[in-house]
């Protein structure tokens, strides 16, 4: 089984549409696919795939501090030690008492150890919820992080582990992850340990600037990267420059998708633009094919890569 994460750095490059389309095309070819939506801030994959209704399960993503107002003597030592500005003193009828600013609390527990009255304690914090369901492409896991929920990376890791377990259970051929934007903690959680990072970009200066950031991230974690250029006809000369640059970096371009009104139209209708009659559909089918070839060309797993590396070393 291969795990592929699709990211773009910049939003709006068509990442989610590409993920859903690749899943659908792969499914139509009788391959078993599991999908994980790791964009836990704005999970959109289910809007395209219309999965069955399934229960949302609360996710405990960390801890949060709680104040016992009876025990608090208002000394303010905790405020002094909190580096996240997450505690404030309020005046009550019984004098001063500390209050937690839940949006700012990182759950580090420093306040609980400096409090002389043991008035602060930690309790589990539900930071979001996740759902395992079925779409017509197969199993789909998605999640939603609560407002300013801490540790989004933990929820992403959880979504991935639920999806990986499901993939093992059904003997899936591919686990496709729809990754979050940016390069921070949830993105790192989404990319670590995958077989391939597929980067969806667009030929605009911001698109390429963000592509270079996510390419650097893939390099940082030593993961193979491949690129899909969406809306490629928006700026053909920039596409030529980009292609030359990627050749120099030894990064494969799996294909280009032209800008076509069929994409927003399909999106508004809640369908996928994979119609084989359409230029976009043809491009996506070509990209799916190239993706499978690229994955087949990889060693079966890191373990065997190690053994073949060792054999090669032994021969030298």
């Amino acid at each position: 089984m291969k795990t592929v994460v699709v990211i773009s750095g910049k939003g709006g490059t068509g990442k989610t549409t590409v993920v859903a389309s690749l899943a659908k095309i792969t499914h139509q070819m009788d391959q078993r696919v599991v999908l994980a939506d790791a964009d836990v801030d704005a999970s959109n994959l289910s809007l395209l795939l219309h999965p069955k209704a399934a229960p949302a399960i609360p996710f405990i993503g960390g801890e949060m501090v709680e104040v016992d107002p009876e025990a608090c003597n208002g000394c303010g030592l905790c405020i002094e030690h909190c580096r996240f500005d997450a505690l404030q003193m309020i005046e009550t009828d019984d004098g001063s008492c500390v209050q937690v600013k839940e949006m700012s609390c990182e759950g580090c527990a420093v306040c609980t150890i400096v409090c002389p009255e043991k008035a602060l304690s930690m309790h589990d914090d539900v930071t979001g919820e996740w759902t395992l369901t079925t779409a017509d492409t197969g199993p789909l896991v998605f999640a939603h992080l609560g407002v300013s929920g801490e540790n989004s990376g933990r929820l992403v890791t959880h979504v991935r582990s639920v999806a990986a377990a499901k993939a093992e259970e059904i003997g899936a051929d591919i686990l496709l992850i729809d990754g979050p934007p940016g390069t921070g903690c949830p993105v790192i959680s989404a990319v670590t340990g995958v077989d391939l990072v597929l980067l969806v970009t667009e030929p605009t200066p911001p698109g390429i600037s963000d592509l270079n950031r996510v390419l650097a991230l893939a390099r940082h974690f030593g993961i193979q990267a491949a690129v899909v250029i969406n809306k490629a006809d928006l700026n053909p000369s920039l596409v030529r420059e980009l292609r030359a640059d990627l050749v120099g970096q030894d990064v494969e371009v799996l294909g280009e998708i032209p800008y076509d009104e069929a994409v927003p139209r399909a999106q508004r209708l809640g369908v996928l633009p994979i119609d084989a009659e359409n230029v976009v559909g043809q491009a996506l089918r070509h990209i799916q094919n190239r993706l499978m070839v690229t994955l087949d060309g990889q060693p079966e797993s890191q373990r065997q890569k190690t053994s073949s590396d060792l054999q090669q070393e032994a021969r030298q």
Partner: protein
Amino acid sequence: MKIAVASGKGGTGKTIIATSLALVWENPTFLDCDVEGPNAHLLLHPTIEESRPVTVTVPRVNEIDCNLCGECADFCRSNALAVLPRKWMVFEQLCHSCGGCRLVCPTGAIYEENRRIGEVRFGRRDHIPFVQGELDEGEAHPIPIIEEVLRHSGDQGDVILDSPPGTSCSMIEVAEAADVVLLVTEPTPFGLHDLNLAVRALKEIRRPAAILVNRADWGADEVRDFARSEDIPILLEIPHILKVAEGYARSRPLVESAPEFRSAFALLKSQLRSLTRETAA
């Protein structure tokens, strides 16, 4: 006043709008707070005059004093520390810099050092002071960089904040610093879904919001219904204009590719001003 330009969904045109707003404003400061993908400089073309590293603290151990008791690793909620039979280890990228390990260490063996996670750059586009933060690739925590950028809002004058996308802690950090948040959306199922999430988040932190609909000619009825039901004003609707998309692909801001929109942006500016005054009153 401080205006954050944000969007639930990425790629709706947030930076195009933020930069065009800056170009019609008199004497604004522009802060690019989208530190995981700062792009406003590609449209505003500022001259960068200075850059400074942003650092966070990480624990280090004085090996002579450390008795490898493991209390620090047991305490650390981020699992950033590990204590082995003969070795003390820190996973720097996991550390949230809370300082707890130093407090619990019974032998005082732990001290803190600064570690770079990104940088802040300072420059100018004509009369507009420009500040931009960037998180280094491979680093997990953007908030310290955003805080550093926000520190340069200046004491007076108006500030335009280009917010990170989504409703993550980064976006909340920027929205909390703003007087009003302009949400840029597009009339697609994704756009509406993510706009709803952003509106929920702003209600939770009690920040006034306004909406700008980009590519409104794709059919903005649902966005309008949503805005009405949430009692949030739609201040401007912009159609999908090919020359704007092409201009963007060639690093030109909207009001330069389509100067006929300058007056609409000037009007947007005064609407944002009066919205801030209303909410302050």
